[in-house]
């Protein structure tokens, strides 16, 4: 399983100021091999469009707030085959990452605009506006907030007519495993909504995935 290489500590990491903070409880539905499927709404002022999307978790390291997986978009008009990308996620556990992104052209205003679109975020809003949620303890919260950033295309070239320059604000419900997200990219239609639900794929037990990173 790939593990995120830790670079220089980001300003949003709180350096042990709150010893009482624990990392999130592992949630059985956010585990390696779990798949989700649903849609991404890519409507633009010109036309309505929605793609079917499948997501599979490939790696999960709660201690470091790291997640990774693949995302597959079907019925994309520009492409002949489903388009698969590999993404890496930051889990907003206020220990490794806070609600402020501080990168990818997302200002704190942009962050607040997106997080507030999740109803489950409203109780947290006031605290986040103050300090990005650094002092929040989310270990017992029934929702997990993340950012997913696609890193590269897996099965098509980057000239396929799609862009992965932006990233997703994601809210995962621990109770039923449903996922909601919003894609942010200053050069694309705003607030493209991602809605996924868990799928079972008829399996039981653990499943592992393996692939080469080139």
């Amino acid at each position, binding site marked *: 399983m790939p593990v995120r290489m830790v670079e220089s500590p980001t300003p949003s990491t709180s350096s042990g100021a709150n010893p009482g903070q624990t990392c999130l409880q592992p949630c059985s539905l956010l585990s390696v091999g779990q798949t989700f499927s649903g849609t991404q709404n*890519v409507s*633009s002022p*010109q*036309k309505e*469009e929605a793609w079917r999307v499948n997501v599979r978790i490939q790696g999960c390291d709660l201690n470091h707030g790291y997640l990774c997986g693949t*995302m597959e*978009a079907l019925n994309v*008009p*520009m492409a002949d085959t489903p*388009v698969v*990308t590999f993404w890496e996620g930051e889990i907003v556990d206020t220990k490794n990452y806070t609600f402020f992104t501080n990168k990818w052209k997302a200002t704190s205003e942009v962050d607040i605009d997106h997080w507030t679109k999740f109803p489950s975020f409203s109780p947290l809003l006031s605290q986040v506006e103050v300090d990005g949620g650094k002092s929040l303890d989310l270990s017992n919260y029934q929702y997990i907030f993340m950012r997913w950033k*696609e890193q590269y295309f897996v099965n098509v070239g980057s*000239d396929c*007519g*799609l*862009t*992965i320059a*932006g990233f997703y604000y994601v809210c995962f419900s621990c109770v039923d495993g449903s996922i909601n997200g919003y*894609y942010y*990219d200053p*050069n*694309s*239609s705003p607030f*493209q909504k991602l809605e996924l639900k868990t799928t079972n794929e008829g399996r039981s037990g653990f499943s592992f995935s393996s692939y080469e990173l080139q």
Partner: protein
Amino acid sequence: MANDSEQTQDLVGSYFLNLWRLKSKTASKDVEMMNSDNEDEDMEEDDEPVPTELDTVNSSGGFSIVLLDKLSVQYPSVSLHGHDVGVVQANCPAPVKRLFYYFEMYVRSAGAKGTVAIGFTTEGFNLRRQPGWEANSFGYHGDDGLLYRGQGKGEDFGPKYTTGDTVGGGINYASQKLFFTKNGQVVGTVEKDVKGRLYPTIAVHSQNEEVSVNFGKDPFLFDIKAYEAAQRAKQDTSIEKISIPQTASYGIVRSYLQHYGYEETLNVFDEASQTSVPPVTGFHDNGFNEHAMYALTHRKILRKLIMDGKIDDAISNLHEWYPETIQDDTSAICLMLHCQKFIELVRAGRLEEAMDYGKNRFEKFYNLKHYEDLVKDCAALLAYEEPNKSTVGYLLEESQREKVADAVNAIILSTNPDLKDHKSCLHSYLETLLRQLSACFLQKRLLNGNQGEAFHLQRVLLAKNT
């Protein structure tokens, strides 16, 4: 991920730039060959090697003598053992990328027993056995008129033949059958159940037998043109049997006129179809309305301006009506428009102006590394005293203006908010149909063991005229 909107716009532009580049490459070849508008229509057929003479490398070793012209064979000895046949193949197998192949054999002398034969064999055939006596071969034998195809026992087929007769053997790739002729008449056909390349083959087997072969250098006795016409006619009748709505062709022509912005022609066309007896109706809303009348008048005006070389007017109109199409100064469509302006200046002999214009504009386009070569072609116009005779002379032809007009037309179509499929800006339905037709033909050929002909529009159109 999301749609890459920048890419969408330039999908249209880059398509036309690629068309231009294709022309640029073939244009330089044309000038070298000094051919007038040589389509690569027949090149595919010419590319395949055809038999021209007999193969003298592989031989039965002593049972056949190929004469100096490499087109005749003699049997040298007396022995008549079944494994002492003098068999000779052509120097290469019959070509397959055509409707059919045919060759003839003339019996100069039937010798002692008249055991001559014409047929087809595969590579590595045992050249001491008559064609047809071994597997994967066919032979029409002169002494008994039987057809042998892989066994020692022949089947009733046609008449015997002897001295003075001309027999022919052919492969019809469309029907996958072999056919044989005697003195200009078809005597029979047989299924071609052998895969792989077939060599035209002739054989002699008794004292003083001598035959000569004709691979097309001389006219055939058999009327090959009539045969070809008959085969195509057969194909045509089966096509004619399929019924399509009478108004289908109207719809296609109409959508072509709409697509390319021929507003006036379209109006005349509509009038005519209504006043014809009986009036032709019902083809207007057949799902052909993808672009329908979107921006028809604007597109007509722009096409006229560009075809008249008035690029400045065209650009200012675009600026007024569809500014988003030329917003990005380094887009493919801007490249085409600015290059065309440059070309028009050269055409008008205003060379200094052209140079200034080029200096100002072309710099930007060096970012488009892919299309650097096209910009260079334009700049090269200044290098020649008589540019229209050079390898970049194609730029001065009307066809270049047409490319720009088509590109502008397509880019305007792409601004249509009702557009569902971006690629539909690029072609009219007529062209899409033709592309599909060509692709289907090629696929059909592939499934036919890669034998048979491809679809050639020119040939079909010319044939209809004769």
